[in-house]
């Protein structure tokens, strides 16, 4: 079923793979915009992770991105409750520079719980190279941190990230959704900048982009992400099993690349 490979057989039979412990680099928690998802709690997330053999999720709760009154409390709390499974991205809201300053100054104290920063520029109505982000980019550059950046089509993230990637070569930029739709531009970005990775969140529901990225020689730069609790990891894993890839490619995408990028900052 699905495809004739050892990894496919393992996932089909067990729903998970002992040889391929998944690392999900793009995860959230909780509600946003008054929507509803059945398993948006931290317990729901851990349950879904267990179901699909996701060993580690790196997350930024919606509250950290959409409610300045709550800020990053849930991020820290989730990682503290599940130190072996969860790491957080510090959510950066450019509309509230004092919060950014405070969160970054506390970063060191929570270093064992945090793996990077998360920016959602177009939702926050700015560009990624906006001045309000400068302290965060300087911090990421100085500490060689991964920064998960929302990128989608022509939302302006491409040019602004080119500026940022040039200015901050030590920051490790993860292009969430890989510029969804502008696949050639995503390839160009990843080829031009060594510090850019492509996250396949919301990419794997289209048939084709992942094969295109792999054919372009970028298999070592691809990361598995789901937007969980929006999308079930089995959907993305099932898509990777159907795609015209080798099991080696799938192992790179599902965990090896993330392991290399995040190093010891994830369990």
């Amino acid at each position, binding site marked *: 079923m699905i495809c004739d490979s050892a990894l496919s057989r393992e996932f089909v039979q067990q729903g998970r793979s002992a040889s391929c412990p998944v690392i999900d680099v793009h995860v959230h928690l909780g509600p946003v915009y008054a929507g509803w998802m059945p398993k948006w709690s931290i317990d729901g997330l851990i349950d879904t992770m267990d179901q699909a053999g996701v060993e580690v999720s790196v997350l930024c709760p919606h509250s950290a991105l959409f409610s300045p009154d709550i800020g990053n409390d849930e991020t820290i709390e989730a990682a503290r409750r599940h130190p072996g499974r969860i790491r957080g991205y510090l959510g950066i809201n450019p509309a509230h520079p004092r919060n950014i300053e405070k969160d970054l100054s506390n970063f060191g104290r929570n270093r064992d719980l945090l793996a990077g920063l998360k920016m959602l520029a177009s939702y926050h109505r700015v560009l990624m190279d906006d001045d309000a982000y400068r302290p965060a980019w300087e911090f990421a550059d100085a500490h060689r941190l991964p920064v998960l950046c929302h990128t989608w089509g022509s939302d302006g993230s491409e040019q602004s990230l080119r500026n940022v990637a040039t200015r901050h070569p030590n920051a490790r930029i993860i292009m969430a959704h890989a510029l969804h739709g502008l696949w050639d531009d995503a390839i160009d970005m990843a080829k031009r900048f060594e510090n850019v990775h492509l996250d396949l969140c919301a990419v794997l529901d289209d048939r084709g982009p992942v094969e295109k990225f792999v054919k372009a020689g970028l298999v070592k730069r691809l990361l598995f992400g789901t937007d969980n609790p929006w999308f079930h990891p089995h959907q993305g894993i099932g898509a990777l099993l159907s*795609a015209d890839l080798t099991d080696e490619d799938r192992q790179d995408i599902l965990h090896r690349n993330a392991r290399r990028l995040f190093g010891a900052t994830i369990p």
Partner: protein
Amino acid sequence: MKFLDCNCFVGTPVHRDIWSPVDAKALVGQMDQAGIAKALVWHIAQLELHPSVGNDLLLRDIEPFKDRLIPRLAIPCPHTDEMGDMDEWFARALSTGVGAMQICQPRGSYLVRPEVVGGIARKLLQHQIPLIYSIERGGNWNELYDLLKAFPELRIIISDLGVWPADRMFRPLLDLYPNVMVEISQYFVPGGVESNVMRYGAGRLLYGSGFPACYHGALMLLTAHAKISEADKAAIAGGNLQRLIEQVRP
């Protein structure tokens, strides 16, 4: 587990996209690889050119694969000269072994309102033909709500929900109308399948792939490992669609 795909299509679209199109032969090849027994299939020209032209292209393309591919015919407008006599049109459609129908809704199409499609709705009810209603390909929730209010017994398969969870939109319809079902090619929110099965039973969800725009394996893996009984999985994977097709009355 036997998979029947209720949402895939053949034919070359007007625009190039990231996915590569397939004809019936290539579709069956991909189904073999994925492990899909049968599929309810439509043609992209039904949407992009005209229902009748698309129907003809579809029937010609799938003719050699009748044991695997079941036609999903598009219904032309009943108020112009395109359909001809409605009884005759439906008789011809039924003779093709049609498994479901759809109303394609590009710019030039007619409104799916009770005033417009009343005659069609009565024929669908008479023959127990499921109507596939695609949200992403031109559908609209308010229109669907009005249609079901007027024809509450219709067998409607809501399809192509859009990837952002649409529970708030479709669940009121599942609560109100027992013949409404949901095709899950774009429904992969964690816990979604389980939560719907607990609330409505497994008879309301149908496996669909969205192929060739999406991969077969995505919802296969999710269905196979949903936390529901094996019987419920089998119903969603293919049993429900099999039953619906068998219940179409000549």
